[in-house]
């Protein structure tokens, strides 16, 4: 038996196909995964993401603490509610996890980390917390529902009464505590929408009210195809403790400036950069019939690489993926798919944003 979110019974009653995900019993789909995917691209869909861990980090020196702990720089967060995507690195520059951090006030930041790494992450956060006198409080009293798609905010706003106006004014990548809710204009789909944190006991009713408001229930299957189209990394697939963000398409999330800021993993990243990177993460498109999958071998004139994630893109109606390849890789590669070498194109990602393909 796996861990259960507050919405477990709701998913089972809805006929969801449940699978193990990082030790959690989660819905992979409720029917057609492709229809769930299209619901998010074209209208509105919702995901139970209560398995992710919300933790509040508090203390007078919380900003200093996070500036040391994270590869991105929370000094960029100046307005209350503003969020930042960052990796948390080990001393070797490997990725312990990726996370979202919200600046609420000078003594209170909130982080949201992956489900499969929550215990490891809490231990990592606590490893440095005493030195800065900060307190780490896992918020297991909160559930989280992601409502995503072009009509998601409008539909969800009908359920939050007097907070609707304020919530609808939230800018991209900003969250705010509104009564019992913490509503953030963030997501993992490449569409507009909210991630709503709310008390565990309120989650089943909020979910069923969203359903009644015309929001489609979506499982982890659609979540994966949406994030891949949106060009977003998945921890454990596209990066892990043995790989640095520089080898994982995440250089943009590492704040090397200001140079005097020390952060865990900085020295290792600088050494890696000075020595010259050997591998990079690229986007691939397969024009032939077939589906790119994680761990398939990528053949290039510069040497072999490997698919880290791959799927069928319902929006583009062809297969897309990420691959870690030698730095010298050009714009054409071959992928070993079930024993056959098929040509694939190297492209810039994201593949899809706001319902529209960006590459073809």
């Amino acid at each position, binding site marked *: 038996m796996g861990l259960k979110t507050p919405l477990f019974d709701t998913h089972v009653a809805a006929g969801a196909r449940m699978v193990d995900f990082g030790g959690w019993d989660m819905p992979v789909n409720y029917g057609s995964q492709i229809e769930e995917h299209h619901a998010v691209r074209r209208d509105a869909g919702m995901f139970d993401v209560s398995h992710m861990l919300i933790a509040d980090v508090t203390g007078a020196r919380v900003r200093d603490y996070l500036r040391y702990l994270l590869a991105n720089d929370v000094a960029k967060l100046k307005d209350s509610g503003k969020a930042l995507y960052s990796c948390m690195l080990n001393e070797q520059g490997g990725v312990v996890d990726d996370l979202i951090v919200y600046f609420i006030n000078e003594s209170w930041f909130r982080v949201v980390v992956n489900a499969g790494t929550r215990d490891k992450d809490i231990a990592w956060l606590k490893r440095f917390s005493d030195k800065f006198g900060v307190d780490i409080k896992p918020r297991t009293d909160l559930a989280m529902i992601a409502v995503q798609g072009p009509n998601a905010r409008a539909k969800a706003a009908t359920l939050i009464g007097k907070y609707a106006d304020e919530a609808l004014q939230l800018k991209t990548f900003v969250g705010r505590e509104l009564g019992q809710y913490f509503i953030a204009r963030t997501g993992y789909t490449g569409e507009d929408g909210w991630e709503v944190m709310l008390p565990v006991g309120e989650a089943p009713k909020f979910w069923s009210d969203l359903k009644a408001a015309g929001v489609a229930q979506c499982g982890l299957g659609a979540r994966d195809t949406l994030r891949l189209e949106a060009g977003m990394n998945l921890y454990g697939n596209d990066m892990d403790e043995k790989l640095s963000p520089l080898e994982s398409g995440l250089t943009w999330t590492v704040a090397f400036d200001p140079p005097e800021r020390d952060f865990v993993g900085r020295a290792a990243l600088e050494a890696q950069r000075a020595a010259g990177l050997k591998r990079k993460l690229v986007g691939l498109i397969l024009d032939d019939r077939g*589906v790119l999958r994680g761990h398939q071998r990528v053949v290039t004139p510069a040497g072999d690489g490997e698919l880290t994630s791959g799927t*069928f893109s319902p929006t583009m109606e062809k297969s897309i993926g990420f691959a870690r390849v030698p730095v010298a890789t050009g714009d054409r590669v071959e992928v070993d798919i079930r024993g056959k070498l098929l040509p694939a194109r190297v492209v810039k990602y994201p593949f899809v944003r706001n319902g529209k393909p960006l590459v073809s």
Partner: protein
Amino acid sequence: MSNIPADLKYLDSHEWARVESDGTVTIGISDHAQGALGDLVFVEVPEVGKSLTKGGAAAVVESVKAASDVYSPVSGEVVAANDALSGSPELVNSDPYGAGWLFKIKPSNNGELQQLLDAKAYEKVVADAAH
């Protein structure tokens, strides 16, 4: 619960076989199999005229989630393949025992048909897989 028609024969690898009145055998994948795979996006069926052996890889069904080989329940020659699936692989999801059939074989050894599972035995395979 998945649908397991009583008049078909099955393999424990989730293929079904139906003996037609002309003696040919139509083959597809079970409702349980299509549900487990999820939305199909590609189906590769064998060419007409190809000789297949019982238990050999005959077709490939690929869903958003995974690719899976389809094994031939009997030996023989392929006499028809469902070409509609190249444009509409979702027929396997929506109608696995009807419009979602994969290929037809002219069996070379009718004795092999006796070795296949009946619906009740296959039901047990599916129930055991759930635990």
